[in-house]
């Protein structure tokens, strides 16, 4: 049964409890930061920050009141997950509940997921010379081996801690229909741009966002796509490669059989 996390931006107060709960549960270190002109903190995701809240300031003019838009920035748990498509080891894989899990033992730190994720989520630290370093990390929806909340009947740590009910966890179907109702209500209630993000994006994601404005206003990627290069690479070039090598191999076997027989028969004449 497909599960999901629903994030309702209209209920979010930007308290960042989720951000802290994520670090706490997953044993991630605090990251030294600085004031870069925003309450958003730290500035970016890293191997130690798998979830952070984005703070966007809107308006603030005489006619347009200042507003803060908060948006969760973390793995979207895509149905068409580009990271899984390109991961050469199976370290990244899709669970039956739809969450995209990561098995660090298998990860080789190659960085393909980092390059191809349309949301720029996975992070790793690799040495320039050896290529080895901190392995790929990202939100696993609390399915990391040894830290697996989901399979033990708990909600994800971020959902568990959220004090306003902006985060909920459950069956994707159920959450989706509740979210659709909420977005419809927002639309008819002076939020014409309200949007349910993740319903159809990249095959439907397992993190859903209720937004009272456009995805763009929330700093989310409009119409994200599995990169064409990832599809061409994995679904065309590689199968073609196996095909070419197979045909060549068969051709060579045929060749040795025919050539041997013909040369021998000529020598016998």
């Amino acid at each position, binding site marked *: 049964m497909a599960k999901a996390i629903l994030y309702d931006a209209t209920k979010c107060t930007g308290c960042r409890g989720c951000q802290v709960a994520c670090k706490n549960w997953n044993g991630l270190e605090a990251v030294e930061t600085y004031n870069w002109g925003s309450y958003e903190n730290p500035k970016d995701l890293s191997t130690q920050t798998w979830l952070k809240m984005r703070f966007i300031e809107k308006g603030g003019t005489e006619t347009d009141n200042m507003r803060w838009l908060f948006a969760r920035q973390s793995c979207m748990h895509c149905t068409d997950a580009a990271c899984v498509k390109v991961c*050469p*080891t*199976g370290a990244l894989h899709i669970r039956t509940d739809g969450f995209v899990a990561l098995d660090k033992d298998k990860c080789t730190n*190659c960085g393909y997921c*980092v390059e191809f994720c349309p949301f720029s989520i996975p992070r790793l630290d690799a040495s320039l010379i050896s290529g*080895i370093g901190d392995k790929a990390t990202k939100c696993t929806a609390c399915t990391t081996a040894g830290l697996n909340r989901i399979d033990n009947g708990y909600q994800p740590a971020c959902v568990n801690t959220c004090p306003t009910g902006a985060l909920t966890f459950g069956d994707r179907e159920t959450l989706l229909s509740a979210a659709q109702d909420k977005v419809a209500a927002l639309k008819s209630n002076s939020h014409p741009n309200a949007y349910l993000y993740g319903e159809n994006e990249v095959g439907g994601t397992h993190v859903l966002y209720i937004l009272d404005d456009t995805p763009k206003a929330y700093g989310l990627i409009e119409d994200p796509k599995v990169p064409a290069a990832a599809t061409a690479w994995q679904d065309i070039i590689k199968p*073609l490669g196996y095909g*070419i*090598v197979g045909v*060549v191999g068969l051709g060579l076997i045929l060749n040795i059989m025919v050539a041997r027989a013909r040369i021998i028969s000529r020598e016998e004449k």
Partner: protein
Amino acid sequence: MKDIERFRKRAIFHHWWIVLCSFLLAVTGLFMFMETLSPGAMGGYSRIIHRFAALGFVAVPIIYFVLNPKTSLEWLKEAFTWNTDDIGWLQAAPEYYFGGPEENMPPQGRSNTGQKLWMVVVIITGVVFVITGAVMMFSGVSGVAVILHDIAFIAGGAMFLVHFFLAVFHPRMSEAMRSMITGKASEDYVKSHHGKWYEEVVAKGEQS
């Protein structure tokens, strides 16, 4: 029977050095190409081998070139010099390698057209490997680089199968392996397989 020298010792070393590096590169590369082989990557340590093999793959040809500029340039020129005999060879080769008669094969230089084709493939895929590999190593994986690296792997790999097969198994290439190990091939073999070059060698021998 008299033997003729086809390859100098250092060229032979160079060949087998590239084979060693390519083997390591291809095996550690396969660990990242086929999911079923990925346990071989040992959680990423195979990538260190890939990088050291890449260093050998780049450094030794450069050293060879610096120490033997004249023969290296001659070799490059040979690989990229193609004429009507090569077209004729390409037309006649399938029949010949499938055990047909020899008459239609145009006389060949020190390397035949197929061998030159392989040299061209090695040079082109080698350059693509090194450039795209260096990009991935020094500025991180980029989609274009990793895909070109893959295409070079597929093209080079398929051609390598043919090269390996001809050298090791094909009855017509009876002395190819010996000449890449000892440097020498029999006069008969050179005469029939590398007629044009044989004439040159004989002419040179008569001069001195």
